[in-house]
């Protein structure tokens, strides 16, 4: 039998709440053994994607296909008990008021985990995450971080093939984060597949093979982190001036800059609804110019700024960002606050 390498396929997924589209034509394909990070600002649609995969929500359009035990892809909303095992940590976890032992035993039972292994599996996991002494304590007495750890255990207790994790590191102390990170690596070694959403970008960087960037319900990039950084390479010139310019004048200057620099500006940015290639920050007295990345364009921009804008401002210095850090990538590409400046003046 030829086993399909793809374990999760999301096709043209859409979700609307009235007229508001939380997800729009979202596509993603994940292969067995990959750890995929789903990154996006609040309200980007991450939890909506995960809730649809977890069958907590029905999509308005499109479908989610998951591998079944025969190796075929199958729509998760079709009635079947034949799909591969999946584990979930969705949203902020809430549990019945019972003990971790009873809860984990229940989850193992309802997923038909072998009865003889349940006790040892629970003990092993509770010990690994420093919860063994809390085994028979009521969950209502647990801290937020401990609840989050139990939620992670609920997702993995039955050794699922595909694990869906929504912000698993929320509320965890650094030690617990390291534990989870280590465990994710262990899962990766066992060829388990993980789809994980998080705001903790450095945590994702540590464990994920690929990143899916989502904003306003649209997938805007899906690749390895290196490739994404290359693709969305920050191509910016900062032009600091000596004296600040009043807002009204700054708007006129920006207009003039657009007219003069049009052919050198970046034109492949994702959010192109508003012009935002040139912005001015009055506090730092700096113009920020996103250009097409070409060396020739860079030289030409510097020439134009030096020669044609003498009457508008006096240039103090030019600079460029040193490297395209992941945090910068996030703020450049995904952060709506960075991308929505109506007139270009901050």
């Amino acid at each position, binding site marked *: 039998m030829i086993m399909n390498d793809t374990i999760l396929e999301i096709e043209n997924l859409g979700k609307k709440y009235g007229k508001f589209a939380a997800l729009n034509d979202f596509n993603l394909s994940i292969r067995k053994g990959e750890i995929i990070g789903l990154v996006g600002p609040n309200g980007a649609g991450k939890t909506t994607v995960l809730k649809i995969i977890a069958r*907590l929500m029905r999509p308005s359009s499109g479908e989610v296909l998951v591998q079944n035990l025969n190796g075929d892809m199958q729509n998760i909303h079709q009635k079947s008990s034949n799909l591969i095992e999946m584990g979930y940590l969705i949203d902020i976890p809430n549990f019945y008021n019972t003990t971790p032992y009873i809860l984990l035993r*229940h989850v193992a039972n309802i997923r038909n985990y072998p009865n003889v292994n349940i006790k040892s599996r629970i003990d092993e996991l509770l010990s690994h995450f420093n919860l063994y002494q809390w085994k028979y304590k009521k969950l209502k007495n647990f801290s937020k971080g401990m609840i989050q750890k139990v939620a992670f255990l609920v997702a993995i207790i039955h050794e699922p093939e595909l694990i869906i994790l929504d912000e698993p590191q929320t509320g965890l102390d650094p030690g617990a984060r390291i534990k989870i990170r280590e465990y994710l690596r262990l899962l990766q070694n066992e060829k388990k597949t993980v789809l994980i959403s998080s705001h903790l970008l450095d945590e994702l960087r540590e464990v994920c093979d690929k990143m899916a960037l989502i904003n306003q319900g649209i997938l805007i990039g899906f690749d390895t982190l290196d490739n994404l950084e290359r693709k969305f390479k920050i191509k910016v010139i900062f032009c600091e001036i000596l004296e600040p310019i009043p807002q009204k004048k700054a708007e006129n200057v920006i207009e003039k800059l657009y007219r003069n620099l049009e052919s050198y500006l970046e034109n492949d940015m994702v959010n192109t609804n508003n012009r935002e290639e040139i912005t001015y920050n009055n506090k730092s007295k700096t113009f920020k110019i996103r250009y097409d990345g070409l060396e020739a364009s860079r030289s030409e921009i510097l020439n134009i700024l030096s020669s044609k804008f003498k009457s508008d401002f006096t240039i103090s210095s030019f600079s460029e960002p040193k490297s395209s850090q992941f945090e910068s990538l996030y703020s450049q590409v995904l952060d709506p606050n960075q991308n929505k400046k109506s007139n270009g003046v901050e």
Partner: protein
Amino acid sequence: MKGFTKFKKAIRPIQSTIWLELKLQKLKFIIISSISIVLFILTSVIPYISSPFFFLPSDQATYMHYSTSFYLFMVILSTGIFFSSIICSEYQKKTGLTIFPLISKKKLIIGKYIANYILMIGIGVIYFSCIGIFSYYFYGGPILYTIFISFSFLALYLLALASFTTFFSSFMRSTLPVFAIIAGYLLLGGLVIDPVLRSLGANLEPLYSLSYLYSIVQYTFYPNFSSIERYNELGNLWMFPSAEGTIIMLTIYAIVFFLLAYLIFRRRQL
């Protein structure tokens, strides 16, 4: 053998849900059982022992009949407590986020329904045991066999009431309004709806009314139950339903409302 293994795999999530639900509801069960014992002693023991104004009924059947009059309150209380939260609490407390992806809603509702029904039956067993014990204490043996017939009708009645409550729980946001609707319908519904319908058709037997159907639990204590006149012409009043009518109506209630509850629950999203 393969079929049996498949069946065991299918049944295991339900079994586990039943056990978990029984554990979660244990404290409520103890409290309601204690209340029902206290209620029984206050209404069916102390008055006959200590009050000069209450006379012990002349026979066991009448004693049992009177003893179950107040039990309707316990039925409402226990149904409300065990069943009003059966579905809506998963949404209200968001526990569904954890549990819904792991178990089919069909298995979840069946497991929770069975567990809570077992607890309601348990409370019924305790109350009817009290009736049996004090019947023996007041009248001597043997205890009337009709107590088992009455209990069988109670079991069916609880099933219907459980489905009725589960139905409301399937679409309402929180537990309290479900409780209020059930209590209001059973305690006041009969007072409001029955007279209105009676004025429309004089001899219409209110078989639709759950509070009317409960009366069979009380009347089946009498060994000559089937020969008692069910319609009181003087009072223009139906006293209790027939066994056949009750079985049909309660079964319809139990099945229809459970299915409706499941269908709504299946479509409901978190």
